[in-house]
């Protein structure tokens, strides 16, 4: 590993960035008495730190430095095990630093005006300091170069995000979400710790320099990768372990859930990339584990969005979408694993570039969506879609930002969502083309799942944007909403601009990100010109030039406007409802919009119960309109399902977590009998242990 001195400008910038995070933490705690001052100063310092580390990250990525800095600090007992605090500077970690600091840059600006609702009620100093600690620990996790300090900052990240999730702990469901969140992160953290140490066993040192492609015996390698999947998968929200995510992210303050959904899950993906690509290079298991990962990722993609469509809470819906996008990123990683197993280095690089690009894009538009929903919450104090409507009249820039965010997340072409999804599509198709075995069938099924997820995403976000911002206002909150504060509007500028820029200038973005991916594969598979990205794996290469598509769209729109011409006079009337007088009962309800999906995917949602809808309509047509809606999922009545875990009665929860919960309470019941209170029983325990040990001694 090359040596990067601390005087390297990029490293220096990141260090000063971390320093300003630390200063932000201290100022937040110091000035917590005066909430307004504390909120502004600490968040400004945090965004300044984020700006510094962003510039540092960009510098390191563009110069493509690869190496480790000298050890800054080490604990005596652990130093001879190779656990000194040194930074790991390489393109992959600098991409992650860019992602982290970019999102925290504008969400801190958003936070300044968002937290004014806590001034009287909660301690703003604690919130701001935890927020800065959370960002700092994420940056340090990505930079750390040995197992011990990685785990230290990883647990620090989990604990600080736990306290941020339970910040508004007065509400009962927040406490429950917090304890479930802690359960998953704690067990996941220990699984990762065990995986690291299993690798340490065959390298003899904890430092990551010795960890690159370690040849482990097959069963340990399988165990390590499964533990890593459990640990990083539960943090990222891969399907079997995703249950905490839709509960924890919505209850956190919006600028924090923007960071958690946008960035924290990416840090988990970074860990997964390290394990699958860097640490464990065992081709025999790579093929099978890669195929299993492919299936898991495809299920995650489809499952996340299929449930998102049915949600009634805005932020819960966005959390389910995070699960979907994590599935897409894991598709890229799975393709890379299988490609390495059939040693097609070009495909490995394409897949990793696709994942990195989607990590960057998803971080941007998901945090934008969470910030805008935070603005909606800040102005209307409710997140229930059925209560909201017609906010476009009032909150102009939030509406535009949310529209652009939802178009990006539904992979609408000119924007960045589509750019990375196109790359993921092509890594899957190329895998199918190159791997002539059953895996190619699985890859094509993953393509189908991805396209179905794309359609469902459009379905879901048209419903959300339509009912929240466009429809006629359906509640008092929606009618009396006031426009959002100015600072929130400025915080939208960066993500909106990036969504468009990364989408249109896709070739440039792919060129920069592929330098990060060259760590894992050679770049003979695709070359990038300024105008288009060309993929060579096929018999005849495939090209896609985003700039031309964007230009074509603009030209066609101008032509259409020309054809449309001028309108002299307009008359405003009520919507036309077949001649009847339009009144408030006719305003479209979101459940109406997604009714057919309930029929098609009913097994995914909770068991059904018949619910009768009845409307009395003017007697021209009939006395009253009644129909049985036989699909009425538990999502519409959350309290119904007694399940202690996700309370949403979704498929995975009914299949996995309810049986798990009952099995563990049975175990606890048995343990209670052990402590029955009778003295002679305790004495018999002692004699029994003594006899058992003597028996073992005689036999051994």
């Amino acid at each position: 590993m090359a040596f990067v001195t601390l005087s390297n400008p990029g490293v220096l910038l990141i260090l000063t960035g971390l320093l300003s995070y630390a200063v932000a933490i201290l100022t937040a705690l110091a000035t917590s008495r005066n909430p307004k001052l504390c909120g502004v100063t600490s968040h400004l310092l945090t965004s300044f730190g984020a700006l510094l580390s962003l510039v540092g990250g960009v510098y390191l990525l563009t110069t493509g430095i690869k190496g480790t800095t000298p050890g800054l600090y080490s604990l005596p007992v652990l130093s001879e095990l190779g656990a000194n605090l040194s930074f790991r500077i390489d393109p992959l970690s600098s991409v992650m630093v860019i992602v982290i600091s970019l999102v925290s840059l504008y969400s801190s600006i958003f936070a300044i005006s968002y937290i004014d609702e806590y001034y009287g009620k909660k301690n703003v100093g604690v919130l701001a300091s935890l927020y800065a600690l959370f960002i700092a620990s994420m940056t340090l996790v990505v930079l750390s170069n040995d197992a011990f300090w990685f785990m230290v900052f990883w647990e620090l990240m989990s604990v600080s995000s736990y306290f941020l999730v339970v910040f508004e702990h007065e509400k009962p469901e927040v406490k429950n979400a917090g304890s479930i969140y802690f359960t998953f992160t704690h067990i996941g953290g220990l699984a990762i710790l065990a995986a690291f140490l299993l690798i340490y066993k065959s390298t003899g040192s904890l430092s990551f320099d010795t960890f690159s492609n370690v040849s482990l015996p097959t069963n340990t390698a399988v165990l390590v990768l499964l533990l890593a999947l459990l640990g990083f998968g539960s943090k990222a929200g891969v399907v079997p372990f995703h249950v905490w995510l839709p509960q924890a992210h919505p209850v956190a303050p919006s600028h924090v859930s923007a960071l958690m959904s946008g960035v924290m899950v990416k840090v988990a993906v970074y860990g997964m990339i390290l394990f699958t690509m860097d640490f464990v290079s065992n081709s025999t298991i790579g093929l099978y584990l890669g195929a299993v990962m492919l299936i898991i990722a495809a299920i995650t993609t489809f499952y996340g969005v299929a449930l998102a469509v049915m949600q009634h809470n805005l932020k819960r819906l966005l959390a389910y979408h995070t699960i979907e996008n994590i599935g897409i990123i894991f598709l890229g990683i799975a393709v890379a694993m299988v490609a390495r197993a059939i040693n097609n280095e070009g495909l490995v690089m394409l897949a990793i570039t696709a994942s990195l690009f989607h990590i960057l894009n998803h971080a941007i538009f998901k945090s934008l969506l969470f910030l805008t929903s935070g603005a909606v919450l800040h102005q209307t104090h409710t997140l229930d879609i059925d209560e909201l409507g017609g906010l476009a009249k009032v909150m102009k820039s939030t509406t535009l930002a949310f529209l652009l965010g939802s178009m990006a997340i539904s992979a609408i072409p000119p924007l960045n969502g589509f750019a990375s999804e196109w790359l993921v599509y092509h890594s899957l198709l190329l895998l199918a083309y190159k791997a002539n075995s059953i895996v190619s069938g699985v890859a094509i099924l993953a393509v189908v799942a991805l396209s179905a997820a794309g359609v469902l995403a459009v379905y879901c976000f048209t419903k959300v944007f339509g009912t929240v911002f466009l429809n006629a206002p359906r509640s008092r909150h929606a009618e009396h909403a006031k426009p959002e504060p100015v600072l929130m509007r400025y915080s939208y500028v960066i993500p909106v601009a990036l969504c468009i820029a990364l989408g249109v200038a896709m070739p440039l973005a792919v060129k920069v990100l592929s330098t990060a991916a060259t760590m894992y594969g050679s770049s003979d598979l695709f070359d990038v010109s300024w105008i288009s990205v060309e993929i060579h794996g096929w018999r005849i290469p495939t090209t896609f030039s985003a700039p031309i598509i964007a230009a074509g769209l603009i030209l066609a729109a101008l032509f259409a406007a020309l054809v449309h011409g001028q309108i002299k006079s307009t008359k405003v009337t009520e919507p036309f409802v077949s001649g009847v007088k339009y009144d408030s009962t006719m305003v479209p309800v979101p459940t109406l919009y997604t009714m057919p999906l309930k029929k098609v995917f009913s097994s995914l949602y909770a068991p059904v119960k018949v619910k009768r809808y009845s409307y009395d309509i003017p007697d021209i047509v009939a006395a009253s309109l009644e129909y049985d809606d036989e699909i009425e999922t538990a999502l519409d009545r959350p309290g119904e399902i007694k399940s202690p875990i996700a309370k949403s009665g979704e498929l995975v929860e009914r299949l996995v977590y309810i049986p798990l919960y009952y099995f563990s309470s049975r175990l606890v019941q048995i343990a209670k009998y052990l402590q029955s209170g009778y003295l002679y029983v305790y004495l018999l325990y002692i004699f029994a242990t003594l006899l058992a040990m003597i028996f073992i001694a005689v036999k051994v």
Partner: protein
Amino acid sequence: MEPQISTVIMEPWQVSAIKGLCTVLLITASYIAETRNLTNALKSYVLQVLILSSIFLVIGVRYEWFIVWAISAIITKAILVPYFISRAIRKTRAVEEEEPYLSATVSLAIIFILVVLAAVISKKMQGFAPGLLKMGFVPLSISISLTMMGLLLITTRRNAIKQIFGVCHIENGIHLLLATSAFWVPETVEIGIATDAVMLVAIMCIFAYHLYRLNGSLDVGKLVLLRY
């Protein structure tokens, strides 16, 4: 303490005297276990301690520091311990013991089995760890059986005072074991063991009194307040 050779010289009469006294010891112990009346049990306990100290005297004939053992045994176990137990009995006005878990005949049968088991164990010890049998086979087996009877008492009796007697049985068993098997034990250990025995019984009597004051009876079987 000058270094001693490992073998212990005993005149034949001493060996037979120790054997006889040990068997008497065993008989008094089983009487304590079975009698329901607590004061009778106390009296026979005092008798048992006297027999034990007489065993020490017999050994003391040849090795004079055992006389110190005998005296300390008498002071602690014949005077102090009975004083505490009688004070406890007087304060808790306990005369008869509640019905234990096992009836008299069954517990006698178990005692017999335990004695046989102790004999078998000490027989095996001959080949296994000869060091224990400096004073011959009987004292070791008696001390093991005494300890086992103490354990039986504690496990199967409901009355608190009876459990105290169980603990006293174990203390006597240990005392005998130390005297006969761990022969050259320095004084500090002897003082440590003796004071431990007395303090243990004293504390348990105080607890028995509080148990009676709060619980109304000395029945330990009802003490199941503390669950998981």
